[in-house]
């Protein structure tokens, strides 16, 4: 047993209101640069929907993730290493910009500079790729809130699959359909296929906290990782020619702060915490023959941090005591393993994803209440969970490779919690048969309710800080997305875009800001990105400039 620690996230989908705050703040913090216009480390998909990039879940086409080969051994879906090397000169299945969307801005200057006249000036959309006029035809969330679903809904690969299997049409009529939001980030997998497909070995998993990063100095732009990741959470920066991905906000996490998406989440539905897992058992677990058993196999990797044998092995593996303690208090462990309500997204990709989801009960509740039923009654809820096959099958395709029993069990727990807590809130005698019907005690059901409904900041985010005595740099290492574009980000370096030594992000922000304020940048100009979170342009914030020669700051 080799115990390692993994930073992980759980999202409670019932609470997501699809506001995209997480996406926007993440973008503002990390990908508001030239070359990453189309890059959304965090995106929120409306399901049913095609997702981002379009139909990324169709692995028959995109060839992401792992499969078992004929001998039952784990193999990348793109085949052997040699085969991938032979395909290196033109990646066979890499999404093109059209599969994402062509990012655009508007020609705002015509608004402010139009001469007085009878006609209203119009700000035309301009492509951020070519600088030319463009027609906006798709975006990162074009089918938001089921927009266009009556025409395009069948393009969702999961809808296709469920339809095939149940021979029943999922209806996209307004009253008959169901809908929920699925926020997605990189899964920081235990068995990442992006890493396995990287020819340069530039993608690595941090041994301390399991965060998966791209070493920007080692990435050579071979693009194999884009194909390798089944979640399509590696993006190609088309200006710097390097792969970029969600960093789990490691500079924040190292000092004990939650990721930006978690911190800003309006629904407060994200939980951050540690798992202890057995690194030696990962490959075996990922090789489980039946895809529907992968969820249990993955859960089996997660070790009980209260077990003395695990603690001893963790200590032996160099995990500090406060980390073991944090693992004991970990909300993600509680939701995934203790209560068993959080499920991994697409376990059948065999990457052992470490962002888990509490599936939404809302499709059931919404349908019940819209039809005038009591959506907080246990019997009604349980009956509906069993009767509403399509939503349950859809969720099962997302979270358990199609095993509906697992999803049903989770939904029943959520329903039981709802029914039980109604009695408590209304001051009635709580019904102990409700927790019993889902195999829980009153205490554990209440504790689960506390964690899911009212957990405070420090209960939702249990993040042990990085250890200085592990002798680690809290700044930026191998990865560092915060060093984009070359010296003077507005001209090409001598060897093309973004060559030369990286500039710290603070300096870059300064230059971008200055440029913004002192020039009237036409929309065709692709430069200029401002990180508004950082600075308003006034004064001399500390750390932004080197100290003056004369000593004044």
């Amino acid at each position, binding site marked *: 047993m080799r115990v390692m620690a993994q930073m992980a996230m759980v999202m409670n989908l019932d609470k997501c209101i699809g506001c995209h705050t997480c996406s926007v703040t993440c973008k503002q913090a990390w990908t508001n640069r030239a070359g990453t216009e189309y890059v959304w480390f965090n995106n929120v998909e409306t399901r049913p929907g095609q997702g981002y990039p379009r139909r990324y879940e169709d692995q028959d086409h995109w060839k992401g993730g792992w499969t078992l080969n004929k001998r039952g051994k784990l193999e990348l879906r793109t085949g052997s*290493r040699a085969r*991938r*090397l032979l395909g*290196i*000169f*033109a*990646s*066979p299945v*890499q999404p*093109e910009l059209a599969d994402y969307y062509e990012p655009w801005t508007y020609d705002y200057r015509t608004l402010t500079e139009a001469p007085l006249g009878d006609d209203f000036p119009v700000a035309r959309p301009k492509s951020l*790729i*070519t*600088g030319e006029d463009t027609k906006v035809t798709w975006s990162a969330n074009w089918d938001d809130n089921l927009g266009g679903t009556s025409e395009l809904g069948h393009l969702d690969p999961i809808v296709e699959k469920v339809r095939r299997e149940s021979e029943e049409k999922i209806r996209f009529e307004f009253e008959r359909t169901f809908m929920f939001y699925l926020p997605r980030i990189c899964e920081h997998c235990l068995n*990442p296929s992006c*890493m*396995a497909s*990287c*020819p340069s*070995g530039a993608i*690595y*998993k*941090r*041994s*301390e906290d399991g965060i998966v990063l791209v070493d*920007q*100095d*080692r*990435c*050579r*732009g*071979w*693009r194999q990782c884009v194909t390798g990741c089944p979640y399509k959470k590696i993006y*190609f920066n*088309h200006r*710097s*020619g*390097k792969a970029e991905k969600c960093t789990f906000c490691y500079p924040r996490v190292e000092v004990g702060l939650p990721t930006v998406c978690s911190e800003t989440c309006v629904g407060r539905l994200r939980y951050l915490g540690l798992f202890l897992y057995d690194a030696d058992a990962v490959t075996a677990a990922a090789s489980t023959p039946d895809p529907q058993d992968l969820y249990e196999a993955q859960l089996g990797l997660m070790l009980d941090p209260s077990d003395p044998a695990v603690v001893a092995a963790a200590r032996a593996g160099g995990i500090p005591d406060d980390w073991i303690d944090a693992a004991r208090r970990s909300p993600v462990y509680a939701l995934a393993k203790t209560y068993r309500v959080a499920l991994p997204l697409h376990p059948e990709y065999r990457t052992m994803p470490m962002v888990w989801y509490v599936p939404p009960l809302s499709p059931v509740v919404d349908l019940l209440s819209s039809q005038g039923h009591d959506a907080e009654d246990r019997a009604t809820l349980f009956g509906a969970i069993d009767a509403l096959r399509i939503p349950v099958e859809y969720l099962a395709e997302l979270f358990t490779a199609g095993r509906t029993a697992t999803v049903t069990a989770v939904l029943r727990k959520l329903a039981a919690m709802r029914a039980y807590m109604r009695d408590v809130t209304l001051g009635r005698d709580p019904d102990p048969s409700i927790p019993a019907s889902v195999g829980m005690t009153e205490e554990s059901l209440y504790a689960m309710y506390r964690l899911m409904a009212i957990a405070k900041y420090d209960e939702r985010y249990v993040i042990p800080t990085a250890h200085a005595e592990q002798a*680690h*740099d*809290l*700044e930026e*290492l*191998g990865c*560092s997305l915060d*060093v984009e574009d*070359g010296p003077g980000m507005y001209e090409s*370096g*001598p*060897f*093309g875009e*973004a*060559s*030369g*030594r*990286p500039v*710290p992000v*603070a300096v870059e922000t300064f230059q971008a800001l200055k440029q913004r304020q002192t020039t009237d940048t036409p929309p065709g100009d692709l430069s200029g990105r401002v990180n508004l979170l950082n600075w308003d342009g006034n004064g001399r914030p500390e*750390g*932004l400039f*080197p100290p003056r020669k004369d000593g004044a700051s």
Partner: protein
Amino acid sequence: MNAVLWGVLPYVMVVVLVAGSIWRYRYDKFGWTTRSSQLYESRLLRIGSPLFHFGILVVIVGHVGGLVIPESWTEAAGVSEGIYHVNALVFGGIAGACTLAGIAILIYRRRRTGPVFMATTANDKAMYVVLVAAIALGLWTTLVSVGAGSEAHDYRESVSPWFRSLFVLQPDVDSMAAAPVEFHVHTLVGMLLFAIWPFTRLVHAFTAPVHYLFRPYIVYRSRDAVPPAPGWTRSRR
């Protein structure tokens, strides 16, 4: 003149190539990439790029074979001069033509696809000129060596001994000087290509990921022991 061209220049080229590469690697790891434009356009790239790259790999193998292995060895192995050259013409010619066709497609694509053209730097353009010149002249020498135009020339009696003599630091200037002018030009352009190599996007070839075949799939890496740097210093790696 000959002494400078064939006795001095090759060493200058090597020094520039080696020193330039080291310098670039230290100075510009972040810029060391293929700068792929597949995201913008992949239909033409999927034809042109493999054609070019596989072609050039065969060409490299051919060069090594022709320049490094002495004629006496192949003859001892029972391959006569004639057979050797027919082979060289067929394989070299096909590979060279593929390479040329590949790069023609790539350059056409580069010019005609708006975003790809926008991502093309002056450096790239200069590099393409040298690269295409080297390939085209190389094809020309292949033809010369089997007697297109004038009489056939066996470069394995002129260029190859010179090439080998460079490694023992006793450049055989005379045999190179005896080669036809096509070979001279091709060699000069080739040397120019290698001299500018470290300063162009061609550097990606030096980090061809052969080690991928041997490394473990999952890479664990610890946060390194680097003291925190203040915000304004350049990050050192």
